[in-house]
Structure formats: structure tokens, C-alpha cells
């Protein structure tokens, strides 16, 4: 039986006085791809930030393999193999691609870049280019590449395909499938065809509340999920 890489129970979170998440409960098994869909402002990104340690929940529990994550620092959680890839595609723009990867390597102790360069051969060509000069797609590749160093057990990926060309989206889809062979993935996404194609389970959020948990394979379709967007 697969272990529970992430278990969130009764999570409530807020920004100051403004409540954003209401009693959210989700769970993710090892090597499972979990999609998280919902309209803008549904609380999807806040959910990822709470798990990654950037937002302290008001109440509720977040655990990974039985270890409580609430109250831990963001870098401590990253050190446990739970990597967050934010939506904004902001890389360290004054550093080269190589230096960006080195930062990932040094933090995780994993200096084997072969898997990264296999997933994203383009990074090999761009290795000495300043990250600030990369396109949106290339930045996303770099951020994912940097995050998978150290073989994380859980990747939290926030809107990875936003603003990217269809060919890159298709490439990322293949990469996520491949990554799911070694890690669990929680992907916040509004691109329904893409997320439905790779997910084992979909959580739909609306106004900070969990509206649906879709686990049946035949229901994980863009048509079925459309009403939640």
C-alpha cells in the first residue's frame, strides 16, 4: 500500500483578518498526481503556500509521512523533500542557468544534473545564459529542473502552464508523467485538458472551500471539471 505523502485535515488559513481557506482536507499518496482546480481566488495557491510553510494556518493539520509540518520553516519543509514551484516564474535573474541549478544542488546535496538535462535538454544549451534572459517556458523548465534535484518526494506546482505555448505545455505534461514515477505531484492548474490527462485525482475548490474530490478515472475529464472553473 502507498504511503501518505501529504495529509491535510481541516485546514483554515487567512491573510490577516481575511479568511481564505475553510476546513480543507486533502490527501496525496506516494507517486500520485493530484490536480487542484478552481476559479481565480478559490484559494488554490494559498493551499500550496500553507503546505510549503509560507503561510501559517489558523487551524488544522498538515502532515507528511506522519510528520507534522505546521510550524516548520519553509526551508525546513523544503529540506524534507517537499518542493514548492511558485506561479510567478521568477528565477534568480542575475544568475546563470548553471548557477541556478548549482543552488538547487547545494541545498539538496544532489549534483547529478543528468535527469534534469534529460527532461529539459534545452537547459544544456542555455547553461551559461543569465536566467533573466530566458523565455517563460525556459524559466519554468529551470524552476522545475532546480526543484527536482535531490529527488523530492512531493512537488507542489502552482499553475505551471500559465502563459506557455501549446508545444511547451505538451512537453511539460510528459515531464510530469515521468516525474510521477518517482514523486507525488500536487498541481494547481486551470488548463483542464492538461491536468485531467495526467491526474489520478482532482480537488475542486471554490471561494476557499473544497467543492469536490474526483477520484473516478472516467470522471476526470475537462467536461466534468468545467463547472468548477
Amino acid at each position, binding site marked *: 500500500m502507498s504511503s501518505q505523502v501529504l495529509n491535510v485535515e481541516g485546514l483554515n488559513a487567512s491573510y490577516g483578518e481575511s479568511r481564505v481557506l475553510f476546513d480543507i482536507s486533502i490527501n496525496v499518496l506516494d507517486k500520485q498526481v493530484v490536480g487542484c482546480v478552481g476559479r481565480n481566488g478559490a484559494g488554490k495557491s494559498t493551499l500550496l503556500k500553507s503546505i510549503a510553510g509560507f503561510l501559517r494556518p489558523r487551524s488544522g493539520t498538515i502532515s507528511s509521512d506522519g510528520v507534522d509540518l505546521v510550524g516548520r*520553516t519553509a*526551508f525546513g519543509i523544503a529540506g524534507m523533500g517537499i*518542493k514548492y514551484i511558485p506561479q510567478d516564474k521568477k528565477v*534568480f535573474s542575475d544568475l546563470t542557468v548553471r548557477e541556478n541549478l548549482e*543552488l*538547487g544542488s547545494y*541545498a*539538496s546535496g544532489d549534483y547529478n544534473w543528468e535527469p534534469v538535462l534529460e527532461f529539459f535538454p534545452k537547459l544544456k544549451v542555455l547553461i551559461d545564459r543569465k536566467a533573466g534572459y530566458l523565455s517563460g517556458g525556459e524559466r519554468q523548465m529551470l524552476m522545475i529542473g532546480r*526543484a527536482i534535484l535531490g529527488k523530492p518526494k512531493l512537488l507542489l506546482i502552482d499553475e505551471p502552464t500559465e502563459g506557455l505555448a501549446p508545444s511547451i505545455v505538451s512537453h511539460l505534461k510528459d515531464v510530469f508523467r515521468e516525474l510521477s514515477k518517482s514523486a507525488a505531484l500536487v498541481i494547481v492548474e486551470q488548463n483542464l485538458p492538461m491536468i485531467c490527462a495526467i491526474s489520478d485525482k482532482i480537488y475542486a475548490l471554490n471561494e476557499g472551500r473544497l467543492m469536490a474530490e474526483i477520484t473516478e478515472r472516467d470522471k476526470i475529464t475537462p467536461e466534468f471539471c468545467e463547472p468548477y472553473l
Partner: protein
Amino acid sequence: MNVLRWWSGLLVAFALLILLRIFLPLPFNNEIIIFSVYVIGCNFLLGRVGFISFGQPAYLAVGAYGTAFYLYYFGTNPYVGILIGILSGIVVSLIVGPLFVRLRSDYFALVNMALAVIIFFLMQKVLADITFGDNGLWFLTNVDSTPILDLTRPDQFYIFAFLAAFAVWAFYKYLDDSIFGACCLATKMNDDKVRFLGYNNFHIRLAAFVIANTTTALAGSLYAVYLGFVSPEMTSPARTADPVVVTILGGVGTLFGPIVGSVAYTGMKDLISKYFGNWELVIGILLVFIMLAGEKGIWGSLEPLIKRWVFRQREAEKPAAADAGVKSR
């Protein structure tokens, strides 16, 4: 070859400093060497970590008084005095650092400025019994001559300061090229993302803070041994902006900006003050023009041009080398 290329910039820069020594008087050379060591800490904090520090004179004074107390009250060996100055810088940085580096850059600037004012009043008033207040501590005659390099002789002191500065620059170049340097730059660019990767940004900032201020304390120690005198004036509120101004003048975050800025600033100060009493006014106006001409500062503007020129030279050499290869076959 790579090793040679790594050192080439440093060697050229310090060879140029030796040239300056030939053409310009010794006190001017000593001044720019020590001043550039003073400024490089500020340059590292501002250029690499994104901290603007108006408190560098505080750490300069800590180093200088650490050395001065030893040479006035306890001992006579200037090398030991310098070592004590450096240790004083480390201790003070470790005491205030954990509090200061938690602050945002603007608050960091102000709290450091406040520290400079505190140190100024400590040395001027509170500890006047041992610092002699504005009269300062005079210990030139207490300092022993030392073998190999006699620091009581200005010409030999220059060699020591030159070597110390070279070591400092080699260390900062190493830092710039290291993962730690990349971490510092990453915290400056995006603090949160450094944490996503698993780094404790507090530790990165604290280490950078201690390194930068220890270098500044070293400059203070060098001043103390060179002049044989320290006074609270070095940390007076009027002096707090000096290292920031020179950092910006030279080129923020560039390796050689502090040297270029120190030469330009000290040169302007010495040259203009000969003809014009209120030299600060002229330097202020000049700085405004320099900033308007290019925010990158002097070295920050020159460096890309030099790099382009070196690149062209290398590109021009490539076909020649290739031709030579064909002929040899």
C-alpha cells in the same frame, strides 16, 4: 589556464595600484588602499545581499579602537593589535547581526546608522575616561618595530596593507564565484525563493554581515596602526554615508568598484581641497553628475566595455590560432 584567468583580473588591478605608488605620494597610496578595504564590505552588503548600510563607520571604529586599546594599554606588537581589531569586528557583528539582519533593507540602513551614532557617543562621552574623548588615543610611540615588515615605517606599512588588500580581494572574488556568493545574490533577488530551495536565508545574511563588517574592522585596524591615533571622529554622523557614496561611485556589486571609487573619491578630495575649502560641496555636485551619467558608477560603466574589448581580442586570436593549426599539419 583557467587558474591564470581567475587571477588575471586581480593581478592587473593590483599591478595598476603599484603603478599608482610610483607616480603618487605614499600617504595617498596608503589612504586609497585602506579606504578600498573599508568600502568593499559595504559594496558586498549592498551589491550582493541588497543591504544598504549607513553604519560601516561603526565597524570601522570597532576595529580601530580594538587595535588602539591593545596598543595603548596592553601591548606593543601591531600585528597582534590588528588581530584584536579583526576579532572585535567579528564579536560586535555576531552580537548585533542576529538582530539587524532580520530587518528589511531600509530599516537595516537606519539601525546601522543608529549603531554608528551609539559608538560615536560611547567613544566621545561615555567611555571618555579610557578613550580621552575628542582628543583621541595617541599610541604611535608605543608601537614596536617588527621584523620582516616594520609597520611603523609608512613604506613598509604600504607593502603590508597592499598584501592585506590583495588577500581581501582574492577572498571576495572567491566568495563571488562560490555557491555562498550565489546564495547571497539569490536572497537579494528573491528572499522567498531561496527558502523554497531549502536555504535558511537568515544564516546566509548573517554570514554575509559578519564577513563584510569584519573586513571593515580590518580597515579600522589598518587605519589605527598607520596613523597611530584614533578618535571618535571616524564614526561621526557626518561620515556615515562615505562608504555608501564610494560604493555607488565605484560601481555597486562590482569587484573592483571599491578600488576605483576609493581612487576617485580620495583623488577628488585631495585635489579639490587644495584649491577649494568646501570640497564636500564640489564632490557632492560631481557625484550628482556621475549618477546622472550612469547609475552603474565608474567601474560598473567601464567593466562591460573592457569585457567586450577582451572578448573581441580573444575572438580575433581564434582564427589566427586555427590557421596556425592548419599550417603545422
